């Protein structure tokens, strides 16, 4: 498991998406973590310190796993870049054509029948 800084992580994630266009999947997992052990957490709690939480993000393509940890300060920026990457790569999803009723009636019967209701 490779722990990276947010920016290299985003670059690696991009190349993961690019590599798995023909086959394979990309998994991304988000989890909250303070990155401290339970003992330390309890100690900090009794001492009155506020625990700083970070968001742990892991990504894998089935073979290689990368991860990064994002805190409250950088999460906005990371979020924006992450959203851009997703938008750029999730192009295989179908687009709904509600306006072109003619087209739907003529040809694309499969799209209508596969609508997720």
């Amino acid at each position: 498991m490779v722990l990276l800084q947010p920016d290299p992580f985003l670059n690696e994630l991009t190349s993961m998406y690019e590599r798995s266009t023909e086959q394979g999947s990309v998994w991304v997992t988000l989890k909250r973590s303070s990155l401290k052990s339970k003992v330390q957490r309890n100690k900090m709690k009794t001492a009155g310190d506020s625990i700083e939480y970070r968001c742990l993000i892991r990504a894998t393509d089935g073979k290689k796993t990368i991860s990064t940890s994002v805190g409250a300060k950088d999460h906005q920026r990371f979020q924006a870049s992450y959203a851009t990457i997703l938008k750029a790569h999730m192009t295989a999803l179908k687009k709904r054509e509600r306006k072109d009723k003619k087209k739907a009636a003529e040809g694309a019967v499969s799209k209508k029948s596969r609508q997720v209701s």
Partner: protein
Amino acid sequence: MVYITSWDEFVDRSVQLFRADPESTRYCMKYRHCDGKLVLKVTDNRECLKFKTDQAQDAKKMEKLNNIFFTLMARGPDDVAEAAGKDQMEPQATKKGRGRKQ
């Protein structure tokens, strides 16, 4: 595996799940370009909610959900913008929130 069909229900229940147990709840996303499918999973290791789709419009909704989760996880489950309307419980700063309430 519990597949939810309504997006809004999926969002509501997963945020609820997270607020109930922020320490063990995680949000996973799997994307397969070759099949054109996206699957989202939120679990706290006891209960599991899943949502699958092949629609581009759901990708946009997922991005909003990503934002919600990022904020919740990085800031702690007391994000003011989220609290409005989603939660009736008092926002808790610590992870389990039992110690400070008294």
